[in-house]
């Protein structure tokens, strides 16, 4: 009986969360399309999300590319098809690994910090302070953060892929002796703009919107205690990562990218 009651509570609570999230996102969207633009705040947030994630994204990209080159080479050389290494590395990076890994990294690096930042503002009553000065906290705090995530994600994704392609080239051509021209031309023949590059940009933009939304929502609705701050940070990373992987499947199934 008690378990049943808890299940009912959880279900109703989950649906209520979904409703609040929808209103929250609508509120952000409403503020995005109307002045004031808060351009100065946006630049600061892009610094936090984009520039500070740059090192980890580029480093991970190069490592992932190098590992892909190594793994791909071992499998392909069994069939004497080392010439297709560029296509294998390039396609798997552009279509799947680039957007998904970038989104997971940014969720861990910037999404958690974003949620913790807003949750701390809730706890220390800074959000209430803003409201008292009749400054809408959604407009001043939340909107620039969510927008910065949406804008920075495709750029970080493109940089991740570039560094990974470079890492794969370094291992495949430099270390394992695949012909450089074959590597590059098989990659360029396999990847097309309409199917692959447009798809990767679309994916990372959707992931950016998703992570920005979840991080700001979890921070904004956190309990005003120190336990609440830590819960909202953990919740952001868990929910964000699962949402990214889930949406990756949905996007791939819908549009085949």
């Amino acid at each position: 009986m008690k378990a049943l009651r808890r299940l009912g509570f959880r279900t109703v609570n989950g649906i209520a969360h979904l409703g609040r999230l929808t209103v929250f996102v609508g509120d952000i969207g409403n503020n995005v399309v109307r002045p004031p633009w808060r351009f100065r705040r946006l630049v600061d947030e892009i610094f936090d999300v984009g520039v500070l994630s740059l090192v980890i994204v580029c480093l991970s990209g190069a490592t992932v590319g190098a590992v892909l080159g190594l793994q791909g080479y071992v499998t392909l050389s069994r069939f004497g098809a080392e010439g297709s290494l560029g296509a294998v590395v390039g396609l798997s990076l552009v279509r799947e690994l680039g957007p998904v890994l970038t989104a997971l990294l940014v969720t861990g690096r910037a999404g958690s910090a974003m949620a913790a930042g807003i949750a701390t503002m809730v706890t220390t009553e800074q959000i209430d302070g803003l409201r008292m000065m009749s400054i809408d906290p959604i407009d001043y705090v939340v909107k620039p953060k969510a927008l910065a995530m949406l804008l920075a994600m495709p750029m970080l994704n493109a940089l991740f892929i570039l560094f990974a392609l470079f890492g794969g080239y370094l291992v495949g051509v430099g270390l394992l002796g695949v012909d450089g021209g074959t590597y590059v031309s098989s990659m360029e023949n396999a990847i097309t703009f309409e199917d692959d590059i447009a798809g990767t940009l679309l994916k990372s933009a959707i992931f950016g919107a998703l992570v920005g939304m979840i991080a700001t929502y979890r921070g904004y609705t956190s309990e005003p205690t120190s336990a609440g701050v830590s819960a909202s940070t953990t919740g952001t990373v868990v929910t964000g990562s699962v949402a990214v992987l889930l949406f990756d499947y949905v996007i791939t199934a819908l549009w085949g990218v």
Partner: protein
Amino acid sequence: MQPSPVRDLIVGLFVALGLAAIAYLSIRVGGVGYGTPGGLLLYATFDEVGGLKPRAPVAVAGVTVGQVRTIGLDDLLRARVSLDVDADLHLPVDSSAAIRTQGLLGDQFIALEPGGEDDLLAGGDEIQYTESAISIERLIGKFVHNSGIESE
């Protein structure tokens, strides 16, 4: 946060870098706008193109001189391929086009064999002599059939 000119500069650099990476991926890797205006557009009709794909390379004597633009069907249900090659390529009118494979399992490409005529192919011309892709399955089928080992 206090406004800081240095941070603005760094954010500007980051945005420029990100946009440059997107542009590089689109143009170099994705191949947007490869067809430079003034490139020579040629047509060739094949009975069978096999696994030829748009953007496959076009080569003369193994040197890449262009790429496949489009692959479609003509009125007689044969494969019509348009090729985009360098404009300064002097190809005689009796040149031939063949679909070849890079290595045993590699991608397919179009090999152009220059002919001996004095007249040159101009933009929009059709390459008369073509050689279709070799289908290994069909070859094996023919071989099995000719040896008299037919299945019941």
